[in-house]
């Protein structure tokens, strides 16, 4: 309808429609309220303009009216609150089994790593119709991953992971902006999200000349750094067995329990002493400054790949299918 003067960016993700529905409701509500106030003012201004001999009538006020125009707005606000909270929950809880892309933001560029091993700068190729979860961190200041067409935005913080997700519904190329001011070239830190049909995407994947998946790169890094000496798959090593770790409940030395998400694995690699798993000694060396963000992403991808494949094939109790080569993990 407004091709030449669009009022909103294209809707290219599942959440975009719901966000726009709430937006249109609020625009209509605001138009109604603004029109009501403006016409009231206009009518009173004309009807009660000062005329000689006409005195203003002093009105104290009416409690009844005051209560109504406190409760009614509060009621409308609660409707808006719950509606928007539902959308927010959807935006902030990635569905299980979503494909993962690791994003590293750096002063003034986006570096992206696919699970299948592809690396991209300021470009993100994804298949249409698939849930994609982004695990993001920054190497310097706060950035913000913003794709208007998907209606998603999430600040990217240094020192920890933040996640967001989307499910692209329309093929095409969409803007990727950095939305949190991050220095001189903040407005240059942009890119494209290229949504492709699945067949096209497979062609793009294979054409990339990539040998190792991210998990395999992680596995080689796991060996190089000597992690394997302590974290043994048979559980005899000085470090906890990492198979089935991701997403499981972990109890620490001081009794606290937490779910092992990306942030826990990251912190346990960089600064292990802060959260020691109960039953183990704080002997793991600090890796802060020894691994780059990209290597860290590959290590985390590897640890996640040690989980038994969610499709529930009969894995041995220790989680790692006996005989399967480490890092073979299913590639959806």
């Amino acid at each position, binding site marked *: 309808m407004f091709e030449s003067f669009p009022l909103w960016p294209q809707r290219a993700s599942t959440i975009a429609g719901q966000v726009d529905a709430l937006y249109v409701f609020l625009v209509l509500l605001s138009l109604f309220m*603004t029109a009501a*106030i403006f016409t009231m003012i206009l009518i009173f201004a004309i009807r009660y303009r000062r005329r000689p001999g006409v005195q*203003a009538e002093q009105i104290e006020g009416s409690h009844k*009216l005051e209560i109504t125009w406190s409760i009614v707005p509060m009621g409308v606000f609660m409707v808006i*609150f719950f509606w928007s909270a539902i959308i927010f*929950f959807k935006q902030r809880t990635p569905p299980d089994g979503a494909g993962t892309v690791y994003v590293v933001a750096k002063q003034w560029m986006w570096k992206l790593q696919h699970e299948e091993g592809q690396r991209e700068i300021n470009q993100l190729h994804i298949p249409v119709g698939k849930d994609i979860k982004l695990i993001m961190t920054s190497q*310097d200041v706060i950035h913000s991953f913003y794709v208007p067409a998907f209606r998603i935005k999430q600040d990217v913080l240094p020192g920890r992971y933040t996640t967001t997700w989307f499910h692209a519904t329309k093929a095409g190329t969409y803007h990727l902006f950095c939305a949190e*001011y991050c220095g001189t*070239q903040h407005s240059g830190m942009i890119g494209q999200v290229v949504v492709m049909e699945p067949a096209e995407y497979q062609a793009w994947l294979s054409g990339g000349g990539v040998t190792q998946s991210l998990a395999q790169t992680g596995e080689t890094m796991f060996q190089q750094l000597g992690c394997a000496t302590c974290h043994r798959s048979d559980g005899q090593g000085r470090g906890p067995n990492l198979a089935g770790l991701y997403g499981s409940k972990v109890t620490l030395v001081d009794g606290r329990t937490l779910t092992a998400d990306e942030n826990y694995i990251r912190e346990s690699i960089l600064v292990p002493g802060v959260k020691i798993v109960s039953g183990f000694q704080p002997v793991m060396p600090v890796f802060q400054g020894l691994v780059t963000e990209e290597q860290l992403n590959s290590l985390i991808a590897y640890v996640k790949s040690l989980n038994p494949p969610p499709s529930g094939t009969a894995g041995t109790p220790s989680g790692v299918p006996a005989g399967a080569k480490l890092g073979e993990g299913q590639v959806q």
Partner: protein
Amino acid sequence: MATAAIAPEREDYLNKEYGIRSWLLTVDHKRIALLYLISITLFFFIGGFFALLIRLELLTPAGDLVQADTYNKLFTMHGQVMVFFFLIPSIPAVLGNFLVPIMIGAKDLAFPRINLLSWYLYIAGGALMLYAILSGGVDTGWTFYTPLSTSFSNTHVVTAGLGIFINGFSSILTGLNFVVTIHRMRAPGMTWSRLPLFIWAHYATSIVMLLGTPVIAVTLVLVVLERTLHLGIFDPRLGGDPLLFQHLFWFYSHPAVYIMILPSMGVVSEVMACFTRKRIFGYTFVAMSSIAIAVFGFLVWAHHMFVAGMSMYAALVFSILSYLVAVPSAIKVFNWTATMFKGSISFDTPMLYALGFVGLFTIGGLTGLFLAALGLDVHVTDTYFVVAHFHYVMVGGAVMGYMAGMHFWWPKISGRMYPDSWGRLAALIVFVGFNLTFFPQFVLGYMGMPRRYWDYSHSPEFQVLNVLSTAGATILAVGYLLPMVYFLWSMRYGKPAPANPWGASGLEWMTQSPPTTFNFDETPQVTWEAYDYENIPAPVPEEAFGD
């Protein structure tokens, strides 16, 4: 224009004594108000100049007027100068200082010397800020987010931070002065229910100034300590949490927007009552909603951080509390509109600005609901939608209220009438220019244009709306220049103002214009309710204005 007939030389606070010492060492709250008026007008035009440069740069998608880091410094200093050196002091320091003592029947504020100290702290902070601007500026955004402000920016963050830190104490001491004065120095008979709503608004503002400003003072101290002595409290490399800075910053900076809007609401209540010749509809509700805004204003700060990486559950708490704080503002707008019912309305310049305030503040408030809605905030925060929202509330609200107050009390402050036809023209220009500047930015924001972008050549579809916005900015600039011209003109050639040119209620209209140094010969006895317009004759139009 015959020069105004020189009235027999009556002593007032302006002609009581002359000379630089009588101004720079005055403890008269009225003279200090004028000192503030001059200094904040200076900063208003500095900030406005930066705004014009920003709008000119955004005329074209490519960054071709200034370099990238210059542009970043422009919007940073536009924000810092406007927020800390114009909007926060504007009404409390100028109109508040002048009127709070007179309106409650006192000779002066409780601590006159501390009032002068507040102005000197403001000037010291302003000087540091100007030094930071002239020697290269700051490029961190007015929000100083770490780790950019502490570790990655090599601009004058320390100087600007100390300038704002010192300026914060001017705001704290003004708030302290107002609270003690309102509690201790009301004239006999001036009970709390007879206080003008201007006083209620300034009482609520002072609560926010007193309890909020120290937190940004300590936050800026910690940023300065981190930059100078490497006390790494916000440094992520040491395990510091950048969100801690944002919590401390927004704990003050959200209530700060209520410091900016509450005094304007007080002015609008006074102007609405006077020009409709009516008591404000639901006086107690309007007074209590000022206090409610000040108190609830402290519970909602993290709605600036929904996408910053805070926890989802805390975001729910802050979102529902943000809707709570919207209710008192809605009550005020409904009460102002209801006040016009069965009134006897005249449309002098202050009334035009007050009506403009009600309209634009409504739009500003309603768009706030978009931003408090979690799901929607994810898309619109950090875009031009947010820029449009807070400019509607701050420029459409606070500055419109400031203009209404300046025109309403100018006869009392200067003893001269300003040319009303010019005033009305300027009001219309400001209204048109403002809407043309900032309404397109709502659409730009929802289209996804991020804020603080120097160059948007990758998305040329944003250009049309940006051109509209820049056109509006030039009209707005003209609209703001006009009042300065005719106010200065009126100081010299304006008709001498009678004690009560508008036939308004309130103790300040019962002293001469301009008032004597001690405001009243003997302390007034208040026996009437607030806004008793049935006993005050409406002004006869021709007699009020000469030209």
